[in-house]
């Protein structure tokens, strides 16, 4: 962060995990405010537990609103998942069954959050390793319905589509086709770990060729949507990150020329 303030790199926007700036004060928040003075900032939450059947955590929501009011973010996003039940948090993005019950519940919660924050949020598809036998619709229909019913935007994680396609036999082409281009606010890319029986979304490797190719198809359908490459573990040198970002930019530029 300090480096950003010193070098002022030509980056279109910054995205941070919302919870990392929930503090009442201190240096991290002050740095984020200084970055915000020069760049748009998106807030990406990992802990709201949107799909949980516990009551929404009002304290968490209050801190998110306080941060959003302070930063005036370009986008506030959360995940299409749950993290807690009966008051116990697992601090992880756990999978939902894709059925009418869960859809009703998630849509009610998304609307509650949007009303409280006074802004539209974006909801992101998660990678998953477990598919509930209780699911009655494909994940992409569920995701598209959340946007349709609540007016929420979608944060499409192309790597997670690929990981879930591998883990659960979902058709990635049908996935992209189900998402209305106008609902897509942002795209995420990342690397995964394919060394075991299940493909694990680690955010700790380069974006795979298959994911780049799916990304090209996503951009062809959705247009040049702002794209973020997530890399949170085993972070490589800045040069490697810049090369990854340049690859994404080439796809986006190509789509802009074709449009």
């Amino acid at each position, binding site marked *: 962060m300090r480096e950003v303030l010193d070098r002022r790199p030509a980056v279109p926007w910054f995205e941070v995990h919302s*919870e*990392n700036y*929930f*503090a*009442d*004060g*201190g*240096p*991290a928040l*002050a740095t984020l405010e200084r970055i915000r003075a020069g760049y748009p900032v998106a807030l990406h*939450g*990992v*802990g*709201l*537990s949107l799909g*949980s*059947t516990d009551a929404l*955590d009002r*304290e*968490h929501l209050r*801190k998110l609103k306080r941060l959003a009011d302070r930063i005036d973010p370009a986008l506030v996003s959360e995940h299409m998942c*749950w*993290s*807690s*039940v*009966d*008051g*116990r*948090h*697992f*601090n*992880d993005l*756990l*999978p939902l*069954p894709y*059925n009418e*019950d*869960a859809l009703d*519940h998630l849509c009610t919660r998304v609307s509650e959050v949007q009303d409280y924050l006074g802004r539209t949020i974006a909801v992101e598809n998660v990678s998953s*390793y*477990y*598919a*509930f036998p*209780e699911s009655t619709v494909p994940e992409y229909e569920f995701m598209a319905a959340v946007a349709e019913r609540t007016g929420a935007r979608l944060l499409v994680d192309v790597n997670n589509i690929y990981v879930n396609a591998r883990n659960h036999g979902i058709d990635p082409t049908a996935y992209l086709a189900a998402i209305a281009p106008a609902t897509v606010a942002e795209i995420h890319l990342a690397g995964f770990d394919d060394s075991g*029986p*299940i493909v*694990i979304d680690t955010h700790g490797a380069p974006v795979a060729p298959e994911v780049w190719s799916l990304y090209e198809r996503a951009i062809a359908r959705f247009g040049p949507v702002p794209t973020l490459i997530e890399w949170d573990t085993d972070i490589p040198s800045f040069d490697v990150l810049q090369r990854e970002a340049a690859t994404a930019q080439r796809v986006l530029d190509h789509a802009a020329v074709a449009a």
Partner: protein
Amino acid sequence: MRPSLPELQRRFAAALQDSAGADSRIGAYRNTVVANYRNALGATYRVVRELTGTPFFNTAVDAFVASHPSTSGDLNAYGGELADFLASYPYGRELDYLADVARLEWALDEANRAADACGSPEATLAALAAIPGSDVAHQRFVLDPSCRFLQSPHPVLRIWQVHQPGAAGDGRVDLRAGGEQLMVRREAATPVIERLPAGDHAFLSSLAAGADLAAALDAALTADATFDLGTALRTHIASGVIMAVAH
């Protein structure tokens, strides 16, 4: 009948916590959850982990998580009870300073996240001067929100210092060097740790806990009969530790 959403989440949570569970798909989540807590607490309690070694630390964290489950989606706020947990943990008893080192690391973490200080020494002194003499004894004060106080029978600051990256010296600690009264406070961007005289420590920690001036003075004199109230007020108002007069 199809199970309800709460029921499905409860079943999933139960499977997640069953370390003998055979389903590798749930196991993938279990591995992530276990690693997340180990990494998060390992970052907060870096010196504790260095003192015990990572395998001991991870095993202790797993037991801590099982007995003190997280209740918040903000992982940064999790783990404040680790010191008390370690104090009653049946293993590692020979490291009897471990819990106090954990307390120090948590205090540093809290200081980092605390609200920014406000006000000025001049305003505090003016407000204090305006209080009628008969009311001064019952006056309470507001301390810099990042201040944390701890005392230990062990040389925890010295232990913490020799485990900092690039620490100078031979890294030896005399464990019989005696105890310490410490104040942690964020100054500018970084929390700093300061040794306090026993009287000042008792005085400030009493004020921080909401005691009025008379009670804080009692505590200070009990700790150190030579404690001087005027000097202490001037010093700690000037430094901003005593940030304001409470209303």
